[in-house]
């Protein structure tokens, strides 16, 4: 199931603007890797290159290699649609489909990709909602609109939707930044459970969160406004937060910078 991601020499552009430059790193399977760094340093852009969502943005383009186990996501003949089925994504703001019920939202990934039997869908929806710790809260109102849930519930609904298609990797772009502390805690607990099954990459602005949930942490930075973002270092989370090898990381973490 869970796969290793191996990135080498990755550079991404928006039109002529180079957003991130020459990033190489390895993301271990069945672990949580956190990306931290100041705004605009390219964390989200890098995350979006991992499931080829970057090229959805007009002008977005990528150079370099992203190996998922032994397959290059940017190899010739690779279909971005099948990449995205393997590498799922949860966004910063909860975005359930407004026209669909809770059930349909979770089933969307399967239903939109072909016909499934109702019984099959029902079991997938139940499993995914349980996996996202949302089942007990919504099991009596599966046919109600997904947009009627609270923000934290909507975000867990989006996680359920993402895991319903059984991806190998789950990317999370600041999944808690629009949520209150209690919902955040619920999602952090969930991340701890999900890493048993998935490779998880999470972008966060909250350093305590990175310290709490991740096994490894990558620090990104940029030399100045308009300069491309770069990977400064990636290491065990404990080491990054106690004894980083680069001075800039320590400055950022201790709040002496940015």
């Amino acid at each position, binding site marked *: 199931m869970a796969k290793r991601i191996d990135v080498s020499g990755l550079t991404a552009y928006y039109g002529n603007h180079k957003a991130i430059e020459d990033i190489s790193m390895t993301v271990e399977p069945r672990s949580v890797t956190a990306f931290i760094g100041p705004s605009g340093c390219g964390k989200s852009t890098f995350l979006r290159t991992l499931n080829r969502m970057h090229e959805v943005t007009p002008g977005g383009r990528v150079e370099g290699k992203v190996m998922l186990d032994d397959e290059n996501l940017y190899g010739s003949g690779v279909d971005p649609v099948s990449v995205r089925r393997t590498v799922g994504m949860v966004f910063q703001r909860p975005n*359930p489909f407004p026209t669909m019920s809770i059930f349909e939202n979770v089933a969307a990934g399967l239903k939109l990709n072909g016909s499934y039997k109702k019984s099959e869908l029902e079991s997938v929806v139940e499993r995914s909602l349980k996996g996202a710790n949302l089942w007990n809260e919504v099991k009596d109102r599966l046919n109600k609109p997904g947009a*009627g849930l609270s923000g934290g519930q909507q975000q867990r609904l989006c996680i359920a939707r993402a895991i319903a298609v059984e991806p190998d990797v789950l990317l999370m772009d600041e999944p808690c930044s629009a949520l209150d502390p209690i919902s955040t805690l619920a999602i952090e607990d969930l991340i701890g459970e999900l890493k048993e099954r998935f490779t998880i990459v999470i972008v966060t602005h909250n350093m305590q969160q990175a310290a709490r949930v991740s096994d490894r942490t990558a620090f990104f930075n940029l030399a100045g406004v308009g300069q491309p973002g770069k990977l400064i270092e990636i290491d065990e989370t404990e080491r990054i937060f106690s004894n980083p090898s680069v001075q800039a990381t320590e400055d950022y973490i201790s709040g002496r910078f940015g």
Partner: protein
Amino acid sequence: MSNATITKNETGGAPAGTSSLRQARLPRWVPPVLVVVSAAAGAGIGTAAGLGNTLQWGLIAAALFILGTYGLAAAVEGGRQAKDRLATSLVWVCFVLAVVPLVSLIWETVDRGRTVLDGYFLGHSMEGVQTILPGGGAYHAIIGTLEQVGIATLIAAPIGLLTAIYLVEYGRGRLAKAVTFFVDVMTGIPSIVAGLFILSFWIIILGFSYSGFAGAMALAILMMPVVVRSTEEMLKLVPNELREASLALGVPKWRTILKVVLPTAVGGITTGVMLAVARVAGESAPIVLLVFGAAGINNNPFDGAQSSLPYYIYEQWQLGNEASFDRAWAAALVLIAFVMILNLVARGIARWKAPKTGR
């Protein structure tokens, strides 16, 4: 200016003289009373000056109302509040000015149209009716309008919808800009020009004869830009996050558009199509050129002359006698009702399909 305001407030005798946050306000009953007073004054001045036209009375009353509000507010509340009230009363007066012609148009049409509007009128044509006598009906014209507008919608709605999808979801660069430009140009095409285009192309060059279908093609040309424009606006309103959410689930782009984007926007798109239908349902110029008008019932839109409601109104008005005037008004009422029903249906669909929050 601000100095003046402050002095006014101090001398204006605000109840809590020491507080700088409280000011004298006009009581809530002042504006409605002012409306009544200025209306009465308008009528009074109008009668005294011997103005026969009630519209002039109304304009005098409106001017008095605006000046009165401003003067009173300036005296009691100070300069800033007076300007606020001036703007508010201007907005209200303009609103009334805009509504008066609409209401009077509907009133007039209903009042004159109902004299001959009955089941017989709706169910019979003008075949063999002596136009100078009462009798006859608009059945053939209603059939013609329904068929022509229906065919026009079948042609224009899919083309317009797909064009809008192209422009919003796929179009980049020069081609999209060119398409947008031509759609804008098409919006301004006078209906008679669309009619002449089909006349020269379909009837003169290709040699087909007059038919409801020829008229429908001209109507479709008029509908298309309206459909493109409104659909485009609706698709742009669909948040990009929804597209990304769907793409990130590994859903292909075309399915994302079909199953996520369009359902989210369907209410607005339906409204847009219905408004386009309403716009062309009243067109008479292309009908005169291409459908030719007929007194009898012709259910086949692909062969021979038909009638349509706007054409029928024009035709009956031209006949110039009491009976035909009545028929023209009744047909006008039918046309307005048709457009109104379409609008209500569109609103119903928009409300029914609108994204639900469930709260």
